[in-house]
């Protein structure tokens, strides 16, 4: 069974797996085997829609609607999965209307994300139970670059199953043998006579027929839509202002809320001016949420967001921070203590580094806590109808998390939750932040107190940046012993940071990963890039003052920085060219070689640059996609200019080349913003950088030339939403070294004044 993340057979932590199997067994094999995991049964759906299966309905006028249970947050998932349907259903993807379904069907679950295995590779009785147990939740969620990997077979099967039903319906209606009919451009066609019937005219019959047991999927050579540049299906809505995001939800009777939140590390609510808040025109209620000593916040409800915000300001809530003295420096000290102490957990153990002899070198790398800064701040809109019924609107990465937030709020007052209708809207950026339930918990608490009134809670930008979840701060100590030929014979790395898996689980779920089994902390190491005979990789997690959460590419960002910078340091020690050094040690992987070759060619690697200019390279696999980046910079004193960035990515089969290109451009600019200038400082328990004047995003004027090469290959598709994030920071730092001889081992590379740090 091929594992997605690790060649060493790593699935999910033993504890979670055992718990899942036990829980699944408790439900009973009989019950589990009745679950409609596949969602391929046709019928009449909600509001009389004609469902060929859980993924596709067709109206009598021929309009096709695809139900894509993944959040469109910019990554193009609606277009990608609609293209899979369109390929088998023989229609133009641009004609498909894509919706996020509201029904929490098991067929909509994302299995790749929790199981870390491609669905095609699920086998054996344990996997049978595990997959069905997850179906009972079901975990519907978007993230981890899993949507295409998870949906690759499922959405094509949905299209093929629907096509076969339409073919069967046409055979019956036309009185012709199936073999003489084919699906073509929204019609079933009888080639010999030229007779054709539109899907809209066939669907009513088609949904009465039994679905095919095993629809045949097209071979890659026959693809006519996959691999072509389908225009994204959401473009028109997003250039006309018609696209609705979570923050735009506006059910009738809406009231608005703003909130003052405790410091991110926690804190008691010590006081607020209730009368002053209520005196603000438009304010209808003031409400403290959660017990004062473990406050969740102080909310004001009003007839407009602006009035609610003014009400919060008038309330002037004060909190006693739980960790008033924590700073990035105190965290660094604690990380160093972890690295020096006995609590590191060995995660990868190959050979024995102690037996390697030769030149040695060692280095320590530091990366900062980072915010997501989605352009759309967090929001939640909740209506408590009473008797356990709720309706919720938002741009969440998972409707399950919306429900969990509501359940957490309900627990505060012993309110029942039995029926939650979730409306998932477009997300103005997600990046992991919108997979959290905090806004839904707060808003639901307000909604429960005001049963019958929908309430929309909007985070200000200060709330969003200062009271979120964050990429952990990390420190890595990494050492190598070089063989006689200069290549790395032994590599030891100790990574100290935080366990997002453990923290996320503790926040929201009935189970949590053990920190010593945290998967994100091993990203960059788990799928090796180089043949290194002796390796010891260890990790350790601490609880940091800033709560940590999933952040685009996670460990690929902070581990990628350490690994690919350090490999460059080894190359310099060996007197070798950075690219040649990598080729000499690279694992036997055709995609890696193609990425190196492409980068070498596009960057004109072999031609030296004049003094003061330099190129840096980094390449490794993330989420099933092989990505490499070359950065070209000019360093003049302490002034850094990024002149050009070249990225090459091989995601296996390419669904839509331009969407892959978009995601690479996106990831490069994301990582460049982080690597150059982003940091978070703490003072008196609060984040200092709470708006864009202090937490900078790269601007259009500051954006360098970015050249992208998308390399399609035959392998099964990888995820592309995050893959180019990891290699950027090390390629940039390596370029700075090549241009100036300065090896900077800390992110961000620039100090507060914008100069290269010492």
């Amino acid at each position: 069974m091929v594992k997605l993340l690790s060649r060493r057979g790593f699935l999910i932590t033993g504890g979670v797996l055992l718990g899942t199997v036990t829980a699944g067994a408790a439900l009973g094999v009989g019950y589990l085997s009745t679950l409609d995991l596949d969602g391929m049964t046709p019928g009449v759906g909600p509001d009389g829609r004609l469902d060929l299966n859980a993924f596709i309905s067709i109206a009598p006028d021929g309009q096709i609607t695809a139900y894509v249970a993944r959040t469109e947050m910019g990554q193009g998932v609606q277009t990608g999965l609609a293209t899979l349907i369109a390929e088998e259903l023989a229609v133009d993807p641009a004609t498909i209307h894509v919706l996020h379904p509201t029904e929490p069907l098991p067929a909509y679950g994302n299995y790749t994300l929790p199981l870390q295995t491609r669905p095609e590779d699920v086998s054996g009785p344990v996997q049978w139970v595990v997959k069905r147990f997850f179906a009972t939740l079901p975990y519907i969620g978007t993230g981890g670059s899993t949507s295409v990997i998870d949906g690759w077979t499922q959405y094509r099967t949905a299209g093929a199953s629907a096509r076969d039903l339409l073919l069967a319906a046409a055979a019956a209606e036309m009185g012709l043998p199936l073999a003489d009919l084919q699906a073509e451009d929204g019609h079933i066609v009888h080639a010999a006579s030229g007779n054709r019937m539109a899907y809209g005219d066939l669907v009513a019959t088609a949904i009465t027929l039994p679905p095919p047991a095993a629809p045949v999927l097209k071979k890659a050579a026959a693809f006519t839509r996959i691999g072509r540049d389908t225009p994204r299906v959401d473009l028109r809505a997003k250039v006309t202002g018609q696209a609705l995001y979570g923050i735009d939800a506006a059910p009738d009777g809406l009231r608005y809320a703003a909130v003052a939140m405790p410091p991110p590390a926690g804190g008691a609510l010590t006081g607020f001016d209730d009368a002053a808040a209520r005196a603000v025109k438009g304010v209808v209620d003031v409400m403290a949420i959660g017990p004062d000593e473990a406050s969740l916040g102080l909310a004001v409800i009003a007839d407009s967001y602006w009035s609610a915000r003014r009400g919060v300001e008038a309330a002037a809530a004060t909190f006693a921070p739980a960790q008033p003295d924590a700073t990035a420096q105190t965290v660094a000290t604690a990380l160093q203590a972890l690295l020096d102490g006995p609590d590191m957990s060995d995660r990868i153990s190959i050979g024995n580094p102690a037996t390697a002899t030769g030149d040695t070198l060692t280095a320590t790398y530091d990366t900062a806590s980072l915010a997501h800064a989605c352009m759309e701040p967090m929001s939640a809109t909740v209506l408590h109808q009473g008797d356990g019924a709720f309706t919720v609107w938002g741009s969440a990465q998972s409707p399950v998390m919306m429900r969990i937030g509501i359940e957490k709020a309900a627990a505060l007052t012993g309110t029942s939750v039995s029926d939650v209708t979730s409306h998932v809207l477009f997300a103005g950026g997600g990046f992991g932040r919108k997979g959290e339930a905090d806004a839904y918990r707060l808003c639901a608490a307000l909604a429960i107190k005001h049963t019958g009134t929908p309430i929309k809670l909007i985070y200000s930008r200060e709330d969003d940046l200062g009271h979120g979840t964050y990429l952990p701060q990390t420190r890595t100590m990494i050492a190598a012993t070089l063989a006689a030929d200069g290549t790395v014979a032994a590599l030891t790395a100790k990574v100290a940071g935080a366990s997002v898996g453990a923290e996320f689980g503790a926040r929201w779920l009935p189970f949590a990963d053990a920190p010593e089994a945290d998967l994100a902390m091993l990203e960059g190491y788990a799928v090796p890039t180089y043949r290194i005979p002796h390796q010891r990789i260890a990790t350790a997690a601490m609880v940091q003052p800033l709560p940590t959460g999933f952040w685009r590419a996670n460990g690929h960002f902070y581990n990628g920085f350490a690994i690919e910078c350090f490999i460059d340091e080894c190359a310099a020690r060996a007197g070798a060219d950075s690219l040649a050094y990598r080729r000499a040690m690279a694992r036997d992987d055709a995609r890696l070689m193609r990425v190196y070759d492409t980068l070498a060619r596009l960057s004109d690697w072999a031609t030296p640059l004049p003094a003061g200019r330099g190129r840096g390279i980094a390449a490794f696999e993330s989420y099933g996609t092989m990505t490499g980046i070359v950065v070209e910079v000019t360093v003049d004193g302490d002034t850094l200019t990024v002149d050009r960035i070249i990225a090459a990515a091989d995601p296996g089969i390419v669904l839509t080349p331009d969407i892959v290109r978009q995601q690479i451009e996106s990831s490069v600019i994301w990582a460049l913003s982080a690597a150059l200038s982003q940091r978070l400082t703490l003072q008196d328990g609060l984040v200092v950088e709470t708006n864009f004047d202090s937490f900078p995003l790269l601007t259009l004027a500051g954006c360098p030339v970015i050249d992208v090469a998308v390399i399609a290959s035959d392998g099964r598709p990888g995820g592309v939403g995050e893959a180019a994030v990891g290699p950027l920071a090390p390629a940039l730092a390596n370029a700075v070294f090549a241009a100036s001889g300065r090896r900077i081992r800390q992110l961000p590379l620039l100090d507060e004044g914008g100069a290269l740090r010492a």
Partner: protein
Amino acid sequence: MQLSVNGVVKDVDVDPEKPLLWVIREDLGLTGTKFGCGIAACGACTVLVDGQAVRSCSYPVEAAVGADVRTIESLATGDVLSRLQQAWIDAQVPQCGYCQSGMLMAATALLAEIPQPTEDDIKAGITNLCRCGTYPRIARAIIAASQA
């Protein structure tokens, strides 16, 4: 007070200091104009007031009385998109799309002032923030629209 928004005069009963952004979104129900930062740093809230790009999150509604306010919803004429909107689609600019209303309004103002902008004009004229990294395509789309 009376506001003229997208060519239609509306009566609104709001605090004169209420930011134009929230009047547009809440009192007029036009949600195409977005909230991003509240300090005029990101431009997601950009509208045109008498043809000038204005960051409406930091613009009191009373300042818009008597002016011609245009939002993203005004760019298309029925089903016919503006040159810029079509150029945005042709270049496949939007990813999450949240910043794009503001970007399009800022670009509309730029082209009205500089019909044939250079790359440097675009860098100076478009200071809106985008988190998804659509900048290279925005620049290409503006140039394409200016040549259409």
